């Protein structure tokens, strides 16, 4: 194995993640190659140094802030969300639908019979108007009342 090929394997060898099938070739190269052997040792040393970094704990308020952010999230809606209606609304809508179907299928006594013929009433309206004009026509009110024996007088003159 060449030093170049070692580049993709040396760290995996150091951290113990190298495939078992690749290990013999790597170990054989390390025995023969001093620079790669030194590199492997120093990579192991670097890995040990990285473990010295202290671990920090999140601040006490961290969890509370996450919870507050999550609580402030609006309720998610998707394409089907509009189908989800509150139970009260669903009940009211169902009751309305049942009522509409019942009225639609159970016919009542039908429309009331026409008491007044609309066309006839329209024809009678001028007569009513004439009657109204005549009853309120002032000159006619000033005329003397008609004589009861008008027909007799006519007969006498003839």
């Amino acid at each position, binding site marked *: 194995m060449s030093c170049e090929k070692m580049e993709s394997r040396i760290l995996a060898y150091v951290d113990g993640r190298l495939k078992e099938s690749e290990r013999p070739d790597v170990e054989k190269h390390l025995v023969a190659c001093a620079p790669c052997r030194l590199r492997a040792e120093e990579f192991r040393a670097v890995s040990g140094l990285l473990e*010295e970094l202290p671990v*920090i704990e999140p601040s006490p308020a961290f969890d509370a802030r996450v919870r507050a952010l*999550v609580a402030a999230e609006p309720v998610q809606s998707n394409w089907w969300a509009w189908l989800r209606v509150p139970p009260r609304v669903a009940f009211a809508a169902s009751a309305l639908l049942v009522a509409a179907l019942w009225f639609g299928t159970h016919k009542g006594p039908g429309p009331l019979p026409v008491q007044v013929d609309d066309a006839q009433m329209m024809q009678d309206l001028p007569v009513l108007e004439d009657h109204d004009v005549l009853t309120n026509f002032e000159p006619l009110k000033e005329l003397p009342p008609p004589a009861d024996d008008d027909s007799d007088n006519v007969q006498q003159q003839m």
Partner: protein
Amino acid sequence: MARTDVQLMLDVKAGDEASFELLLHRYRTPLVNFLFRMVRNREQAEDLAQEVFLRVYRAREDYVPSAKFTTWMFRIATNLALNSVRDNRYHKLEDSMDAPVMVDAEDGGEKVLDVADKHPNIEQHLVEGARVKMIRRAIDKLPEKQRAAVLLHKYQELDYAEIAKILSCSESALKSLLFRAYESLRVELAPLVAVQGRP
């Protein structure tokens, strides 16, 4: 028997808020540490970790267990961290030359160095602090993607295939990325490596 991450996430999807609490408890510390090591600012790391949990929660309805939960979660975290690091790069350029000297605090964060503070073990404290600081600086000097690869490989114990998915690269590209990162680290940490490597 503890429920797996995938089972917990499916329970969250079904409306079980308590399962989300378990995921939060399980991953709060690894996430904050990963993000802190990426962005080097504790407050920002916590803000980003909160954002990760929020995004996980938002995605619950569409969650499909096609990949490991940790792969998915750390992919969100890595993307947020890489964007944040790129944004911060410009802010750092604007930092004043007379900014206070910062040292590593015990909790892993940073604090302003108070020269008048006469701590009885200050020498030892500073020596240990300097060692940790050297390691941190070596990690900070890595290009963002190499840094993310090292952190995911070393601290999250994810396998190569998972890290490659998180970083959207091939497994061979990841191995090359890690090799170059470790080469840089062994140069940066040469004084410590020599001592560490001594039998």
